[in-house]
């Protein structure tokens, strides 16, 4: 019997061996294709290399190859390198970036963010410090943004990421349907603060029975949060926060502050009067689609120059804004979206040269942001750009992530001087003293998980006015039990260490 089995075993073995051999050959070997000379100074640009850039993608990538080829034509000439774009869908972002960095695949530029593990990527030594490279090859970058923002990404005194040029501050206010504002003669200039909105809501409630005066755009932009965001720097997750105007780098429990209590009391008052959508705390419908469907009058939001025009497109109606605060730059405003060079890069020098082009070269920025002229956009007489008539969307990029957006063509409907406005706006902001601080939650992981559960249970309810503010005591009690004090102590410790490192 054994003999017969031997024959059979051989057969199985052969098939297994074959399948393994097939799989070994079938791979694309892409990771080795661009191995260049990491040690040799890339500045000499003697050997052409391929630079891979990974970024977060939400849009259409049908014509990606064409755009990539056009960009490569320019970079080939300027830095003797071609570019490979690697769009990663937001659905796969965390997972794939983790795996990319854990492995040894070549990756030269990566979009990083304090919302997506920036501090732990640095802690794990997965990103390289950029200071020397910036000084040598990235000299054009520094002038494109406010110095505080440029330096606002430092960890232990070193730069690991370069922020994109975008709105790095936000002001807060109310966005409303223009047709209704005009119809009832609402004077936007008479609205000076959030409290003044009450009379407007009353008008809408009385005269437009089918329309809800106030909805939330998303469940993270709660009614109360828009009112307290100008005062409270969440320091990331809001578990332990800082009062911006106190200017003292002291971590406190935000749910115990007067600012927070005032905001949720106001939200509750509006909710009880019937101004706020009844199921605001739980609905999955965004404010955009509620306004679009004619069900809502408006929503509170964080804003920036050109915000009305942008949201008018999303809402399918013309919108007007009432702004109530000065622009504020929070601790995460700079490191919210950055470009970094991963440890995996075989050509960090060349990668920095490409980064420099993304901040200084108009043609490359326009190709990356808007696609190919004539195919994906055409220029209007006033310098703005629009989709060619009848063209299907072939390329959509999320320009705020990467590079110097001020160089990109401005889309029709947005003021042509938007980037001048934006610069003034960014520079005029109140800067949080903790700008650039990122919290590494790993030492208090358990407490953060427990506190987040409590947070999810109460936060949206309280901040949308659905829950009685009297529950705040209970909420704070549970937060304490979950270990909020330990989180605050840890955050304070890290904040002090960060401040000391940056003072040098």
């Amino acid at each position, binding site marked *: 019997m054994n003999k017969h089995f031997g024959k*059979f075993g051989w057969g199985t073995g052969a*098939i297994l061996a074959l399948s393994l051999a097939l*799989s070994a050959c079938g791979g694309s070997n892409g*990771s080795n294709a661009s191995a260049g000379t990491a040690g040799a100074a890339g500045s000499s640009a003697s050997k052409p290399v391929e630079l891979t850039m990974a970024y977060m993608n939400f849009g259409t990538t049908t014509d990606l190859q064409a755009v990539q080829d056009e960009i490569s034509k320019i970079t080939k000439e300027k830095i003797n390198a071609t570019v490979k774009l690697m769009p990663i869908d937001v659905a796969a972002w965390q997972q794939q970036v983790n*795996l990319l960095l854990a492995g040894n695949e070549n990756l030269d530029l990566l979009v990083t963010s304090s919302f997506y593990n920036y501090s732990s990527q640095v802690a794990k030594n997965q990103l390289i410090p950029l200071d020397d490279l910036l000084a040598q090859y990235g000299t054009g970058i520094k002038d494109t943004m406010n110095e505080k923002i440029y330096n606002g990404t430092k960890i232990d005194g070193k730069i690991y990421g370069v922020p994109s040029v975008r709105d790095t501050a936000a002001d807060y206010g109310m966005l409303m349907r223009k047709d209704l504002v005009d119809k009832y003669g609402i004077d936007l200039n008479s609205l000076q603060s959030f409290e003044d909105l009450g009379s407007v809501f009353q008008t809408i409630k009385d005269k437009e029975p089918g329309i809800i005066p106030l909805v939330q755009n998303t469940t993270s932009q709660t009614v109360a949060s828009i009112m307290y965001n100008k005062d409270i720097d969440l320091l990331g997750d809001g578990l332990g926060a800082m009062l911006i105007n106190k200017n003292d780098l002291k971590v406190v429990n935000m749910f115990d502050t007067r600012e927070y209590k005032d905001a949720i009391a106001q939200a509750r008052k509006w909710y009880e009067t019937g101004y706020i959508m009844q199921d605001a705390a739980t609905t999955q419908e965004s404010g955009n*689609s509620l306004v679009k469907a004619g069900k809502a009058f408006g929503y509170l939001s964080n804003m920036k120059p050109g915000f009305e025009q942008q*949201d008018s497109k*999303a809402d399918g109606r013309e919108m007007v804004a009432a702004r109530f605060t000065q622009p504020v730059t929070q601790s995460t405003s700079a490191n919210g979206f950055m470009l970094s060079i991963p440890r995996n890069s075989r050509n960090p020098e060349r990668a920095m040269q490409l980064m420099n082009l993304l901040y200084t070269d108009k043609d490359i920025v326009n190709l990356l942001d808007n696609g190919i002229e004539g195919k994906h956009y055409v220029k209007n007489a006033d310098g703005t750009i629009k989709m060619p008539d009848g063209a299907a969307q072939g390329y959509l990029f999320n320009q705020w992530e990467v590079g110097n957006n001020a160089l990109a063509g401005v889309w029709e409907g947005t003021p042509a001087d938007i980037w001048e406005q934006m610069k003034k706006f960014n520079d005029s902001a109140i800067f949080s003293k903790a700008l650039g601080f990122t919290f590494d939650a790993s030492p208090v992981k358990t407490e953060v998980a427990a506190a987040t559960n409590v947070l999810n249970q109460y936060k949206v309810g309280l901040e949308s006015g659905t829950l009685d503010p009297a529950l705040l005591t209970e909420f704070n009690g549970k937060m304490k039990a979950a270990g909020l004090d330990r989180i605050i102590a840890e955050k304070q410790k890290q904040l002090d260490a960060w401040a000391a490192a940056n003072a040098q």
Partner: protein
Amino acid sequence: MKNNQMNQTAVHILLILLSAACLFPFLLLFMASFTDEQSIVKDGYTLFPSRLSFAAYDYLWNQASTMTRAYGITIFITAVGTFVGLLISSLLAYPLSRKDMPVRGFLAFVVFFTLLFNGGLVPTYLVYTELFHMKNSLLALIVPGLLTNGFFVLLIRSFFSTSIPVPIIESAYIDGASEFKIFYRIVLPLSLPILATIGLMLTISYWNDWFNGLIYITEPKLFSIQNLLNRMLSNIQFLQQNSLGGNASAAAATIPMNSVRMAMAVIGIVPIVCIYPFFQKYFVKGLTIGAVKG
């Protein structure tokens, strides 16, 4: 007699109600995919929408070339994966079912061991990408599914060892059949129920697989249909929750988000629903035999 008939009617009514309860969500899903976006936001989901619209399918049709491609990839990996999976599983299960096989207990333990423990995501990823260079290849969609089905192997082994009498194998051996001949002329034809069952399970798992695509595939032209739908869905959700600059927000505004989700679900399940009835008669039989007697 009359009593009996009454019982019958009662049971029928009960079963009809049950199946209606199972069908209802699907019907609602189907109708929602044809409902006008604005009326979903206004009135919620209903079986009789006030306004019908093909906007969702129109949106998906605009991506037809990507979708057809993704369908092709899914059909290919499902066909190849199911076939090779069945082959490997039954080839491994057969010797494990033979009492005269040396180190049988140890091999069975090795198979069983993989059910309980695995290397974890990062090491698995590193093995497939760094050692076998499968990243961005169709193999990455097929191979991981082949090697993680110890459960199927054990099911088939139980079927072989309980339903195929040893005397049949011995008589074939006496008639001069080789081991291979015994396997494919005698054992496999007698095991049709379990093969169909495992085949169906493999088909469904390959058809529904999006996770391998999520971690191993970054090349859009290799997306399978479930992976593509999953990505489109999350992207739509993200666009909905974040107001983006440039022309992205304008593009997002034109997508009928609620009905598109439903339309995607319809597109994703229709083909599998179509083939299910053909497998079903084997399915019940194979599963009970494999499980109860094993």
